């Protein structure tokens, strides 16, 4: 059904059988805690290259769950596999930007050099090739993950060199970065991946005073911190735009035994990569913001949910946390304030876009499949393990630290009405200078395009697939929460790009990423994808345009979470802004016969069973 399905089980591809004692040790390392299931299964995947039925039995025994519960988790996440994978797994970023940047040629080179097709594992168990959705490197596409490292800006020559080096037995990290072993984690990250900071703004990417915000915050009563954050006008930067101060106020309201502060670093919206840059260059600011949040709401425990695609940043972030603990900025009595305790851990995801939804993120941290939770209750009232949990985006926490340093008014005065401060934009696609731009809210799309060298764009996808595809006539619209809202993605398409090819790709993305919990998102998106395929094949009728609108409306109105409430947007916003793309392709049917109905294919099985041939359809028919 899609490009990402696991191959059918077959040979063991030379994978070593998981020894019982090794699996038991992995479970024990996480205290046999079922809430740490994602960590346990990730470690098993890394150690044994798959999660076998026998392994699931052992994990179930050790953690007190049933095997089917373990399998439910193992089968949910794309990076966990129930068939053996190669010792080296190469995951090509299959985003539309990578496709337009020549992904197919790169894939062909690897397939040719390694002798396997994408989706396959070599017979000796050395290599697996896979596709994976956006890995957050659209500004340096085509890109790929090789085990836990990434390679970017791939050219044909580079692809050939990488394949040859891998076949010669070189380690992925040494291929990704020369002299890997001698570099600091930060150097490794920045040599592997360019930051591409094109414009540093006043709040986040310009100079910052370390810990100034935290120092100011500890001088205030917790309620006063929340007041300041609320007065700044700060709204969530992940996409939904909820007022941060209000979220904190809810979380701080009820007296409870435990509270949590979670950082959402599951930057999965295709075309978004600004958090990657903050995680690389401003990790201290982010953790400072989390620590301020902990002080404000009274949380002692926290967590950074880092998407599996960004695992190459784990070491770097671990070092940041260790450094802060050593400096008394995390742990007990932070900055010498008695009773101000806060510490956190990193939870690595395993390939699931839905985990960027806060309820699904919490489910994932609890060791469950990444399914959104029923709302109400909201996470701020009952979140992780049933306790109040603040979940904010990386950029939001960074802003918090700066607001506490420079003051609410300073932040409030930037931007425009209802959208205060600055915003990081991840710009990619058909423009001269892809990368990250920090700009005040309120800029028009046209002004942004001029800065990035994308004036000639034919279409711009603002906010990623779940956002809006904007046509030239609407480039005057403003980048604010109330006009063109975006979690940061600005994807520029030249007039030569095929709009429907983009739409079809985005729908396949949502089909792949729907969790399956609710009917409209699970099933409806498949129907939308099939309908767009009809248009692409020239088999659509005029009434199919109404069908797209009608089905989209049902999915949006009845879906359980934000994924289904926005997944029809690629279709709806292109129908609105590019109606000719659709109307040019539809043909009224003659004789009310649908072009998609292939009568011959429909009766083919029966015809074969009956051993009958057709003198109309079988050209070689002879009586």
């Amino acid at each position, binding site marked *: 059904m899609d490009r990402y399905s696991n191959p059918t089980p077959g040979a063991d591809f030379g994978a070593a059988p998981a020894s019982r004692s090794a699996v038991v040790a992995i479970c024990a390392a996480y205290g046999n805690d079922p809430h740490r299931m994602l960590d346990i299964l990730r470690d098993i995947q890394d150690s044994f290259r798959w999660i076998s039925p026998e392994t699931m039995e052992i994990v179930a025994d050790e953690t007190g769950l049933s095997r089917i519960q373990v399998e439910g988790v193992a089968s949910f996440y794309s990076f966990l596999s129930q068939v053996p994978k190669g010792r080296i797994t190469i995951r090509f970023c299959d985003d539309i930007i990578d496709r337009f940047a020549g992904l197919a040629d790169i894939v062909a080179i690897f397939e040719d050099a390694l002798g396997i097709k994408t989706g396959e594992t070599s017979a000796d168990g050395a290599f697996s090739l896979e596709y994976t959705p956006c890995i957050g490197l659209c500004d340096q596409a085509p890109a790929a993950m090789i085990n836990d490292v990434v390679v970017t800006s791939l050219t044909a020559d580079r692809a050939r060199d990488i394949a040859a080096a891998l076949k010669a037995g070189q380690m992925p990290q040494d291929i990704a970065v020369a002299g890997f072993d001698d570099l600091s984690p930060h150097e490794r990250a920045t040599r592997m991946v360019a930051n591409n900071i094109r414009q540093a703004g006043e709040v986040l990417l310009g100079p910052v005073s370390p810990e100034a915000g935290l120092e100011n915050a500890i001088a205030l009563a917790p309620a006063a911190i929340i007041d300041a954050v609320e007065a700044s006008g700060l709204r969530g930067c992940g996409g939904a735009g909820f007022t941060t101060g209000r979220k904190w106020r809810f979380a701080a309201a009820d007296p409870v035994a435990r509270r949590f502060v979670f950082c959402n670093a599951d930057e999965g919206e295709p075309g978004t990569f600004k958090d990657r840059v903050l995680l690389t260059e401003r990790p201290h600011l982010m953790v400072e913001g989390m620590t301020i949040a902990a002080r404000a709401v009274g949380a002692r425990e926290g967590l950074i949910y880092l998407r599996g695609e960004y695992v190459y940043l784990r070491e770097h972030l671990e070092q940041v946390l260790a450094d802060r603990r050593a400096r008394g900025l995390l742990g007990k009595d932070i900055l010498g304030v008695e009773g101000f305790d806060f510490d956190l851990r990193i939870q690595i995801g395993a390939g699931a876009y839905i985990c960027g939804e806060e309820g699904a993120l919490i489910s994932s941290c609890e060791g469950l499949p990444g399914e959104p939770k029923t709302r109400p209750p909201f996470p701020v009232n009952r979140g992780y393990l049933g306790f109040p949990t603040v979940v904010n985006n990386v950029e939001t926490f960074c802003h918090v630290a700066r607001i506490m340093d420079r003051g609410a008014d300073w932040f409030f005065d930037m931007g425009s009405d209802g959208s205060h401060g600055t915003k990081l934009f991840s710009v990619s696609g058909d423009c001269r200078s892809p990368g990250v731009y920090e700009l005040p809210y309120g800029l028009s799309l046209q002004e942004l395009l001029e800065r990035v060298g994308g004036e000639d764009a034919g279409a711009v996808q603002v906010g990623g697939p779940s956002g809006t595809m904007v046509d030239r006539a609407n480039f005057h619209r403003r980048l604010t929460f109330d006009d063109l809202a975006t979690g940061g993605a600005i994807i520029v398409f030249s007039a030569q790009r095929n709009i429907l090819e983009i739409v079809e790709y985005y729908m396949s993305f949502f089909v792949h990423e729907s969790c*399956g919990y609710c009917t409209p998102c699970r099933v409806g998106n498949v129907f939308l994808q099939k309908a767009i395929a009809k248009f692409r094949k020239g088999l659509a009728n005029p009434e199919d345009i109404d069908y797209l609108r009608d089905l989209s409306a049902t999915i949006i109105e009845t*879906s359980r979470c934000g994924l289904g409430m926005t997944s029809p947007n690629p279709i709806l916003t292109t129908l609105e802004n590019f109606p000719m793309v659709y109307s040019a392709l539809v043909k009224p049917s003659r004789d009310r016969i649908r072009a998609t109905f292939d009568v011959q294919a429909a009766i083919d099985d029966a015809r074969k069973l009956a051993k009958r041939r057709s003198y109309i359809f079988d050209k070689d028919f002879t009586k």
Partner: protein
Amino acid sequence: MSDPDFTFTIDGTTIPAKPGQTIMEAADAAGVYIPRLCDHEGLRHQGGCRVCTVKAGGRSVAACTQPAAPKLVVENETDHINKLRRDLVEMLFHEGNHLCPICEASGNCELQAMAYRLDMTGPTKFPYLEPCRAVDASHPDIALDTNRCISCSRCIRASQDVDHKGVFGYVGRGIHRRVAVNGSDLAHTDADITDHAISADVCPVGCIIRKGVGFATPIGEREFDHGLIGSDIEGKRRE
């Protein structure tokens, strides 16, 4: 709970409610039926099928999970809401293989009964996904045909919370998500014909099959041959 009882309205009818009750719980008690497939008496609320979508205070929500609130104005049986529900039921028909004439659940099937209630009588517009999953007939008393599953999770909740066995669970994600069993097949689980999860009440369709009883009740005398689905709840109001 010290908050006082309150009332709200569904399609203009006043419904009494207690704090903490969902819209559906209060409606059921008052004899107002809100169509549903994944929700089932005695099981945790799920909010998965979305057939119980109502408009509450102008927002579309699942009535089975949404708490009732004082003075809330709920729309239930409007043309618009019924159209959404018909779309959802059609989606479920097209997602699986639901061939009523050859299915032993016909007449007792909630999916079929819901289609009748929602007036799904014309030709449908969606493509058929035609799953082709192996039937698990390994167990001496029970068979499982997941091609007919509508992902309501009632068997999962019943087995976990009522039988305390955990025979069923989901595997996979998105359109590939499906009900599976806690073993290599049903014969290698704790499943028993006397389980609540296996009872005729729990599976709304013909996915969980009790062997040997399939066609014992003739057509015309099956559950929904006697009245529309939901008429038992609506009957309470007339009494």
